[in-house]
Every structure is written in structure tokens, then in C-alpha cells.
């Protein structure tokens, strides 16, 4: 991506982000928040008609939603495009698994350690990377994340357990949990097991908290300062702001969000591997945010949900499934369609994602949220036309 493209993307829906700034009332914020919370908690119900109501998938929506909300604080509000955020996801996972191994299977300390560890890590990486802006900043974050990924595979093996990944073991100390029972323990919330739906509800509650915090940040003087930095950093300096600590704070906060998401991955499945830190994972959160709507509160969550949902569907398609879909066609055509569609599904689902992403950037730079905005504007226009 050229610097110019990055710039267009960053500015994508500047128009949509203004009401987010100063005309939205506290009341309408709280109504939206309440609707959001209810929608998140009832995901297993209203998503089941489209086959997405089961715990494995809805908890993914929640986890990646948190990741994307945090990423948007840095990218959408502050205008710094990080290509290395998966590193913080990985650190959060490792910290959480270590908490399970050494302390307790309770998920609360695991989440706290995940957030703290990634926060410290983000402080270090952010301190160095934020000396540059634009494409140079992006490259620095990418380089740091790839370094972390490689270190996790090599010299840090005592901490990360290298290629195998960090797992629970029978002889782990777990000093707070008392004598071990037979077999590997499961994660708990103060004694209640957090696998299946309880695991989802832990993630859902954290998503709701994450959304609320992001909402407060967006409406605060700090959030307005971040948007001003994105708009014109130069002006900020001549206006008396020391922008460095602001950008660093935004970087650390978004790193902590990623750390929370990473620790939740360990909560629902207590293992951590280096592949979580790979650049593809860093790129994915960029896509989620842009697809949903950069700079909006809800957009990143929608983007995360949409990508994870379609990943789930498309990657499950194989030639037999395709054959069944096209079996109303004559055999020659059926084979042709299967051959044509084949590269876009299964392992090739990223190809579909790439195409969709290109279409969004070209036709709807403000993402799904811009689409929703346009549709509701059209509806209210036609309604006022009819009434006049």
C-alpha cells in the first residue's frame, strides 16, 4: 500500500467521525451502549438462524471485536497504522497461559496479566516506533512484530515452548489452586468452568466493557486530542500540545486491548503459539477495522464479526460442497463452476477476502458503517419527501 492510499484509508470516513465527536449526546451514547450490550449478550440467539450461534464462533466474534476496537483507538482515532498488533495478541496469550500454569486456572488473573504484559510490551515498542510517522511507523511496527514472532520460535523457547506452543501440563505448580485432580484442569471463573457458553459470556462481558471504555475515550478530551493529532499533528505542536505522550498512550491502550483479546483466546482454549503473532494476524485486524468503518465505535466490531463469519463459512467449503451447490446445472457446467469457484473457498478464502476488501476501499471507504449511514439517510430522505 502506498503512503497515499494509507492516507485515503485513514481519512476514509472523516465525515462520519464528526458527529461521533461533539454532537452526540450523552443520552444517545448510553442508549446505543445498552442496545450494543443486549445484542452482544444475545448473539447465540439471533445468530443461530444463520448458523453462527454456537460458542466457538460467537466467542471468536467477541474476541476479535475487542482486538479491533482497540486497534481502532490507534488507527481510527490517532491515525497511526500499526502492522504489528498481533504481537500484543501473542503476548497476552502467553501471559495468560503462564498465569494458568503458575498461579491458578481462574481467568481473572490471567486477563489482568495478559493486559499488563502487553501494555508493558506496547510501551517499549511504541516508544521506539512512534519516533516516525506514516509508512515508516507502519514498517517499524511490522518489523518489531516479526522479530517477536521469530524470537518466540527461537531464543525465547523457555518462555514460549517454541513450535509446540505453550500448553498446560499435569505437573504445573498452580500455587493458588491447591492439589491437582486427575487430568488437565479447565479454566474457571471463581470455580465456575468457563468452557462452552460460560466461556462465551466471559468474552461477551469483556467486549461490552471494552466498548464502554472506548466510548468514554472517544468522547473525552483525550479522544478529541487524538482525533486532532490525526487531522493535523503539525498544528497540534504549535497549539501547545506535546503530541508524543498522547500517541504513546493511544498505542499502549490499543496494545492492552490486543492483550485482553489474546488472553481471552487462552481463556477459551488454554494454549498459546507463536503463529498468533504472525503478520497475517496483524493484517487481519487492519482489514476488520477498515471493512467495518475506521474511526467509528461500532464499525470495528462489525468488521471483525463479518470477517470471522465468512471465514468460517468459506473455509469450510470443499469441492463436494460446491458440487452440491451447483448440481442443478448440467454436468459440464457444474464442473466448470466448481473449478472457477474453487480458488476462492477453503484454503483460498483469503482471495475472496482480498476481493471484498478491494471493493470496499474503492466504493465504500467508510466501510459498513458508511453503507449503513447512506441507507438510513436515503430512507429518511424518502420519508420526508413523502410527508411534504
Amino acid at each position, binding site marked *: 500500500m502506498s503512503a497515499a492510499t494509507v492516507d485515503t484509508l485513514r481519512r476514509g470516513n472523516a465525515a462520519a467521525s464528526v458527529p461521533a465527536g461533539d454532537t452526540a449526546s450523552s443520552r444517545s451514547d448510553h442508549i446505543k451502549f445498552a442496545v450494543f450490550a443486549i445484542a452482544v449478550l444475545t448473539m447465540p440467539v439471533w445468530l443461530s438462524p444463520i448458523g453462527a450461534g454456537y460458542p466457538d464462533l460467537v466467542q471468536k466474534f467477541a474476541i476479535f471485536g475487542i482486538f479491533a476496537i482497540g486497534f481502532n483507538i490507534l488507527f481510527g482515532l490517532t491515525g497511526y497504522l500499526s502492522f504489528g498488533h498481533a504481537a500484543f495478541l501473542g503476548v497476552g496469550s502467553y501471559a495468560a497461559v503462564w498465569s494458568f500454569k503458575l498461579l491458578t486456572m481462574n481467568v481473572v488473573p490471567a486477563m489482568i496479566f495478559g493486559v499488563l504484559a502487553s501494555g508493558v510490551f506496547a510501551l517499549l515498542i511504541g516508544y521506539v516506533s512512534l519516533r516516525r510517522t506514516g509508512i515508516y511507523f507502519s514498517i517499524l511496527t511490522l518489523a518489531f512484530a516479526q522479530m517477536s514472532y521469530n524470537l518466540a520460535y527461537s531464543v525465547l523457547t523457555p518462555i514460549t515452548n517454541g513450535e509446540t506452543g505453550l500448553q498446560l501440563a499435569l505437573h504445573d505448580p498452580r500455587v493458588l489452586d491447591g492439589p491437582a485432580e486427575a487430568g488437565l484442569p479447565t479454566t474457571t471463573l471463581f470455580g465456575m468452568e468457563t468452557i462452552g457458553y460460560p466461556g462465551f459470556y466471559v468474552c461477551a462481558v469483556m467486549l461490552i466493557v471494552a466498548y464502554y471504555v472506548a466510548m468514554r475515550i472517544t468522547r*473525552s478530551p483525550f479522544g478529541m486530542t487524538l482525533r*486532532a493529532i490525526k487531522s493535523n499533528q503539525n498544528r497540534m505542536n504549535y497549539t501547545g500540545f506535546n503530541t508524543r505522550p498522547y500517541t504513546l498512550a493511544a498505542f499502549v491502550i490499543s496494545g492492552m486491548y490486543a492483550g485482553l483479546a489474546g488472553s481471552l483466546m487462552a481463556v477459551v482454549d488454554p494454549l498459546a503459539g507463536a503463529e498468533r503473532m504472525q503478520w497475517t494476524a496483524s493484517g487481519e485486524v487492519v482489514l476488520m477495522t477498515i471493512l467495518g468503518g475506521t474511526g467509528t465505535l461500532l464499525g470495528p466490531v462489525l468488521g471483525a464479526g463479518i470477517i470471522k463469519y465468512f471465514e468460517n463459512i468459506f473455509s469450510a467449503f470443499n469441492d463436494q460442497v460446491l458440487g452440491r451447490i451447483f448440481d442443478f446445472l448440467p454436468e459440464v457446467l457444474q464442473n466448470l463452476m466448481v473449478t472457477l469457484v474453487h480458488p476462492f473457498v477453503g484454503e483460498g478464502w483469503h482471495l475472496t477476502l482480498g476481493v471484498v476488501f478491494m471493493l470496499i476501499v474503492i466504493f465504500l471507504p467508510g466501510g459498513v458503517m458508511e453503507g449503513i449511514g447512506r441507507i438510513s439517510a436515503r430512507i429518511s430522505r424518502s420519508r420526508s419527501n413523502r410527508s411534504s
Partner: protein
Amino acid sequence: MAILDVQGVCKDFGGLRALNQVNLQVREGSVHAIIGPNGAGKSTLLNCFVGRLKPDTGSVTFNGKSLLGINPHEINQAGVARVFQTPEIFADLSLIENVKIPAFAKRDGAFRLDLWSRTDSHAEVRDHAEAVLEDVGLADKRHMHAGSLSRGDKRRLELAMCLVQDPKLLLLDEPTAGMSRADTNATIDLLQRIGERGITKIVIEHDMTVVFTLAHTISVMAQGAVIAEGEPEAIKGNPRVQEAYLGGAHL
């Protein structure tokens, strides 16, 4: 007493001597105009005051404190605000936000981590920002996008962003360029009104009506040097000034 004292400032760009031994004393509370043909080095001189450029030699002292080698935000916090030649505003934000931001910088300093209160709960900042927007005649546009304003309105907005900070020294780089006659007169009025508050101002202008209405002192620059300085009447009759302006604006 000079609130700003500039001594022997030189600045080279490659082979070009943009500033050549510039001396300047700006009296506290006065309006000091800098005029001169295009490329004379006027904006470059202002850049040396706000930390955008570092002079090769010389000193810049504000209120007895050197401005060289300190960061732009520290210079602003010390009480220097600037309107740029090409408007520097927050194009993606609303007008009221554009003015609130400098107001927060003035109230809270260069950094404050306030991420939990609501911006609109700071009533005194909002009221102050709205009053200043009213002053510059942009109150009815306060929820518009700053980026969608006309060039003249952007300038007035930038002026509001400076005024809300109640600076000790206000640097104005062509504050009326791109404005209609009516808007120019409104801006002169505004600057005269804030003159009563005792803000020291340095004004770079090509519009001589503005210069001769506002200025107490005029410095004339040409090719990086100050070639004349004095009260408006004296400058009008100065033959060297006439010569520097040959082919340029007429006095």
C-alpha cells in the same frame, strides 16, 4: 520594553540567504507590521520564532527567555500563538472542536491524560470557545466541518484558535489573504478590538490598508534583511521602501 528581541538572525537554505542579520524589537502591547515583497523572508523569520526553523546564528528572546532550541509546544505554552500563511486547522473536526482544542491546551498544559470525562462536560471551555467563535463571526457554523470552509473563513477560524488561548504574542502571517473586502474590514475591526486587550501582535501583510490601519511600527524586509523600520508615516515616504516595492504592491 521589548517583549520580543531578535538579534543578528541569519538563515541559509542551501546557497540562498533567506535571513541576513535580522534585528527586531517588538514593544509590548504594540502592533508591529512586517512588510516586503514576495520571498523577502518574512515567513521564514516567523518560523524562527515558533520553533519551526532554527536560525544559523543570532538570538531570539521572548520575555527575557531564549526561544531557540525549545520545542514548538513549549513556545506556545510560553504564550506565543501563530496564524500561518496557509491555514493550519483541523480539517476533519468541527469548528467548535477546532477552538476547544487550543482552549484545552491553554487550561491543561502540554499533556494531560483525561480519558474519562466527557468533552462537553467542560462547560467553561465550551462557553469560551463559543464566545470566541462569535467574536470572529463563525458562531452559526460551529458544527460544520472545518475542512469545508472557504479560505477566508479558515483564516478566521485559525485566528479564533489563537485568540482562545489569550496569547501574549500573536503572530499573524497574512491574516486577510483570500478574504473579500468586507471580510478584510471585519478582520481589521476584530484585530483592533483585541488590540484593546493588550495582546502584542506581529502582522505580515501585503494589504496596505490593513498595515496602515493597525500598525504602530513597520519593518520593511527585502532579500532577507530589514531595510527600514519606523512609524507608518515615516515608512510611507522612505525612498528605499519605494524601491524595494517597485513592481510589487504600491504604497
